[in-house]
């Protein structure tokens, strides 16, 4: 199975989807070889033998029994496939009791995560293994998607609605999340991770206030902390440090440079400008770029903003 699908199924649910996939593949394969086989066999066997004269061909115009059979048999086959597809799907849609809930709000181009206890995160969802998780999905601006390929499920994220999806992750690991509903320029950069931790590690992580064991201690240098926050907060989905520009301006060399703004003015990128652009990005929009960055006022405490600014200053 793993060889066929390249991903291992990450849950029992996903295993059942794979079994359905294989069932359809086997039935489809049978009909593939039957129809293509006959097509090619007839085409070769009944090719015209003499260059200038047709073979004797019979005037067969049909056969009611054959017509009946090849309406009946496909009808039965499709009903069987429909039935299994529906059953596996129905099981997917009924959430198991006692599921951990995680709220996910998508916006261009990031996922904002909120846990019931008030913790927040961006583009990274952490859950304990062995317990069902229910995602409550919504979107802030346009349609987005929430696709967990390893779990064989996805659900659209719709402004003004809450859609749900649940999975039961069996094994610890890091699983990809893709946005699957086209949402604009940064669509293909809108990536996130579902990190499934062993229950023990998860407990520890929660006790640390949502930080890994040794990271984020009191003595962590500001620059190191800033770099970590920059990559965790989804900044790099839109801002490249090196190379080709993504949606927003590149970050290297930004500090101290002269930045042209929409409306004709320009500003020198000092500490205050960098801070303001994180917590109130709509205030000074760089010329030639869309005004799409969300505010980090609520999701990034002032200490973290300071750390990010200090890190940006090192990118010369």
């Amino acid at each position, binding site marked *: 199975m793993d060889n066929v699908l390249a991903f291992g199924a990450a849950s029992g649910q996903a295993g059942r989807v794979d079994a359905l996939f294989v069932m359809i593949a086997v039935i489809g394969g049978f009909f593939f070889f039957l129809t293509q086989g006959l097509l090619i066999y007839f085409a070769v066997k009944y090719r015209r033998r003499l260059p200038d004269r047709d073979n004797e061909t*019979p005037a067969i115009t049909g056969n009611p029994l054959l017509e009946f059979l090849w309406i009946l048999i496909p009808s039965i086959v499709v009903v069987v496939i429909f039935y299994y597809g529906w059953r596996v799907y129905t099981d997917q849609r009924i959430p198991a009791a006692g599921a951990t809930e995680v709220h996910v709000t998508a916006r261009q181009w990031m996922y904002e995560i909120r846990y019931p206890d008030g913790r927040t995160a961006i583009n990274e969802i952490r859950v304990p293994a062995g317990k069902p998780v229910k995602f409550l999905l919504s979107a802030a601006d346009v349609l987005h998607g929430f696709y967990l390929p390893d779990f064989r499920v996805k659900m659209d994220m719709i402004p003004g609605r809450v859609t749900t999806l649940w999975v039961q992750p069996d094994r610890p690991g890091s699983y990809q999340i893709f946005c699957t509903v086209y949402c604009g320029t940064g669509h*293909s950069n809108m990536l996130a991770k579902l990190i499934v931790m062993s229950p023990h590690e998860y407990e520890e992580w929660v006790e640390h206030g949502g930080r890994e064991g040794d990271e984020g201690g009191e003595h962590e240098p500001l620059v190191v902390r800033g770099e970590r926050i920059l990559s965790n907060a989804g900044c790099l989905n839109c801002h490249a440090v090196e190379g080709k520009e993504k949606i927003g301006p590149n970050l290297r060399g930004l500090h101290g440079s002269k930045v042209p703004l929409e409306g004709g003015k320009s500003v020198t990128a000092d500490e205050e400008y960098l801070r303001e652009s994180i917590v109130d990005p709509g205030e000074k929009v760089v010329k030639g770029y869309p005004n799409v960055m969300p505010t980090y006022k609520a999701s990034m405490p002032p200490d973290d903003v300071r750390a990010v600014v200090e890190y940006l200053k090192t990118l010369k």
Partner: protein
Amino acid sequence: MEGVGRMEAEGNGRGYLSERGWKSWAFTLDHKRIGAMYLWTTTVFFLIGGVFALLLRLELLSPQARYFSNHTYNVFFTLHGAMMIFLFIIPAIPSGLGNFFIPLHIGARDVAFPRLNLASYWVFAAGFLVIIGSLVAPMDTGWTFYTPYSAKSAAAVTTLSLGIFLIGMSSILTGLNFIVTIHKLRAPGMTWHRLPLFIWGMYSTSIIQVIATPVVGVTFLLLAAERIFGVGFFDPTKGGDPVLFQHFFWFYSHPVVYVMILPAMGIVSEVIPVFSRKPIFGYKAIAYSSVAIALGGFLVWGHHMFTSGMSPLANAIFSLMTFFVAVPTAVKVFNWTATLYRGSITFEAPMLYALTFIFLFIVGGLTGPFLGALATNVQLHDTYFVVAHFHYTMMGGTVMGFLAGLHYWFPKMTGRMLNEKVARVAWALIFVGFNVTFFTMFILGVRGMPRRYAEYLPKFHTENVISTIGSAVLAAGILVMCWNFLQGLRKGAPAPANPWRALSLEWRAASPPETENFPEIPLVTEWPYGYGTPKG
């Protein structure tokens, strides 16, 4: 114009092409000339849409943005989709080959409303001009126009949708014209069960065009009202619903895939018997299955929206209906295959393309159940699996059917024969290139690569490179084919009236046909598939 050609015997001069000058084209009421104008126009857009496809494949050679920005990539896939769908694949066979051959097939001198027919073309032309005009702020919403993105986008969404609105109007007028033509202008003795199957396909298609197209027109009006006047039909902050747009859109856009495929199936049903020297197997099954597909196609639009938050019950009903639309399609494939049995088969280019249609359509058809079944749909929806499935049915199906038709009727339309050897080289390149390009996408989809991604994870790199190589081979094949068409037009050997020894009525007209099509309206005494030796 009166009487020109009527008194002349076949094969002298250039028939309907004899008049010269742009006015003879722009104001023509001849269905053949209007059909030819559609064919030229749609073929040009096919090539432009193909160039966009090649640019997409070029960018996807590397996982990171290399040649174009993400925004440019998004514009390219939008234009590729919009042009291929609205300016090529919907009008090419119905308005192009349909216009040319419906009257010839049923033994009429023209369509029922020649002036309306000319108007349809010019409304179509206005549509594509508006669409070209929208390129000043090229749209990046995807050809599906999903709200709220399309409602908020600063690009020329309103202009592009106006263009498609006009194209839709042209499509409705053409459909109406064909329905009346097929009902009222059949030659004496041309009963419904003596109609060529191409006509059954076109008839079913016309019904869909007339019923479904107004819905997409209304949808675009609502979208325009939202963008211009701020009415919140689809805006949740004003009490609207973005998913409503998807329902409206797919209520048109699903039936319209049958507008694309049914005429192509009609062409295949014409070509297979001629080159097998056998009567079509199961005439009534093929004819009625077209109508069944056309009607059933209206009840399955929800299968594009299984992950949009519809209720599980609605999803289940749409899934079941979807599977039942598959049955009449399978019936056609079985009947075509049975037609080959004990035939005397030759493999000229039209037959090669018709057999390729069946071959690729079986792949497209058998990958359908993965998407029709709910649980696997939830896995594969919006991945490259869907892209592959769609291209196997639409390019492997409709485009191959279209090419079969072009090669089959080229002698009739132009009065010249094509170079058969060059046609085979082109076919081989297209066949290989197509499969390398698109089969790879099934694998990408199963491995989880989402569609419409300008950049992708490095683990998908190999398949993308293979697919791009395939697209280059495919493009080479298309170029060789175009060159062959142009050479054939300029210096192909003169075509006899009936080079394929076919029995349908168009081959009784001269090659190219006279303006009046037939010297006398033919009297029809039998069906057009009387090949083979009757028993006893």
